Every structure is written in C-alpha cells, then in structure tokens.
C-alpha cells in the first residue's frame, strides 16, 4: 500500500466541515453524525488508492459516508424509510407566521422527510452538487434524484404551509405593496 500523500490528508481535513454537515442532515443527530464522519475518514484513508486524483474528492467522500450510513442502518435492523410511506399523518406543524419561516421549524420539517428525499434535497439544494453528481453519490438515476428533490420540496412546502411560493414569493409581495403605494 502506498503512503497517503500530504495533499490527500490536507484535503481530507478540509472536507470535514462538509462531511459533518451532510452527516447531521442524514442522521439528524450530532453524536451519530460525528461517529459517521470518523468512520468515513478511516475508510477513506484505508482506500485512498481507489481515489482518482483530479476527480471530485468531496463527492467520493460523500459516497463513502452515505454508504456507511445506510449499512449502519441496515445492521441496526432499521428499515430504510420509503418515500411513498406513511409520513402524511405527521405533517401538521404550525404555519409559518407572517411569511417568515423560522429555522427551527424548517429543521423540524426536514427531519420529517424520508431519508432518500432529505439527502437528495440537501445534496442539490445545499451541498452544491449537480444532479449527475448526486445521482452518482446515491447510486441511482438522475431522474430519480430529480423526482426525490421535487417531492421533498413539495412536502416541505406542505409541512411548512408555504403555498404557491412561485406566485407569491417575497418579491411579488413587495412589488404589490410598493405598487399600491405608488398608485
């Protein structure tokens, strides 16, 4: 086995904040997340030779972390949540007041999503991956990621009672207000 290069180690260190954020998003638990990141770093170190320099290290690490997460869940005998499952009954949360959405409410809503939808919307909407990269990380088709993101977004809107955001975004409201004042 060849030695791990200094730059690989530096890049690993630099990836830790993103790995922790993704791990918390998946586990919804800070302690479990840090254990998961630790496992990921050990695995990445052991199989550093399989990483192709010049390719996306972050995507490679996210893939390892994600695989580790699901294999731990399977070991614990927990069924992976199904997106089409029975979450709807738990959907009720108080509506966002005055159109201002609290981060705590958002966190609660995110927690209610099935894992596959949550990871998809995090990878696309927050971690900055393309649909193609997210599909590779999750080992599924690009279309699957697209549909999970779309369902996640719709479900978050339902939980948070954001309706018709496209027509009534903040821009539209402020335009209406200034418009009527001016008239």
């Amino acid at each position: 086995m060849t030695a791990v290069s200094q730059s690989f180690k530096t890049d690993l260190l630099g990836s830790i904040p993103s790995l922790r954020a993704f791990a918390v998003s998946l586990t919804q638990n800070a302690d479990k997340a840090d254990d998961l990141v630790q496992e990921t770093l050990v695995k990445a170190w052991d199989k550093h030779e399989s990483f192709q320099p010049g390719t996306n290290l972050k995507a490679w690490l996210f893939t390892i972390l994600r695989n580790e997460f699901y294999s731990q869940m399977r070991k614990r005998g927990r069924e992976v949540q199904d997106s089409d499952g029975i979450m709807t009954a738990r959907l009720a949360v108080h509506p966002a007041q005055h159109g201002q959405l609290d981060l705590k409410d958002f966190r609660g809503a995110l927690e209610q999503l099935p894992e596959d939808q949550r990871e998809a919307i995090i990878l696309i909407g927050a971690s900055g991956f393309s649909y193609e990269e997210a599909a590779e990380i999750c080992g599924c088709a690009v279309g699957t990621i697209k549909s999970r993101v779309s369902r996640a977004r719709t479900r978050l809107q339902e939980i948070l009672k954001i309706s018709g955001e496209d027509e009534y975004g903040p821009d539209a409201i402020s335009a209406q207000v200034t418009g009527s004042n001016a008239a």
Partner: protein
Amino acid sequence: MKNMTKDITAGAAGRRRAASGDPLGPNSEIGRKLKQYYDELVSDHVPDRFAQLLSQLERTEPAPKKD
C-alpha cells in the same frame, strides 16, 4: 416621500425567475432556508478529535518513501 415606486420591475423579474428557473434558487423560501440550515452546520466548530484521528492514521501507516 412620493418616490416609492422603486423596483417594481425587479420584483416582476424575480417572480418570473422563481416560476421558471431553479426551484431551490434564491427566490425560493425553501431554497434559502435549506442553505441557511446547511451553512450553519458547515460553519460549526470542528472538534479536535478529527485532526487527532488523521494524525493517528498517519502514524500507523508505513513511513512515506523519501524519494
């Protein structure tokens, strides 16, 4: 106090972007919250245990070749 007609057109443009463009973009409340949620996690202080872990891994592997 009369010149309050600012940015009506900008609002309309924003509305069009939100309707047609990136559904998780800056004009989407969900998109904005998602980034806020994630950025907060990313900027969280990293515990020392991870740097220690990497140093430990480095010590246990065979010494790198000199040339």
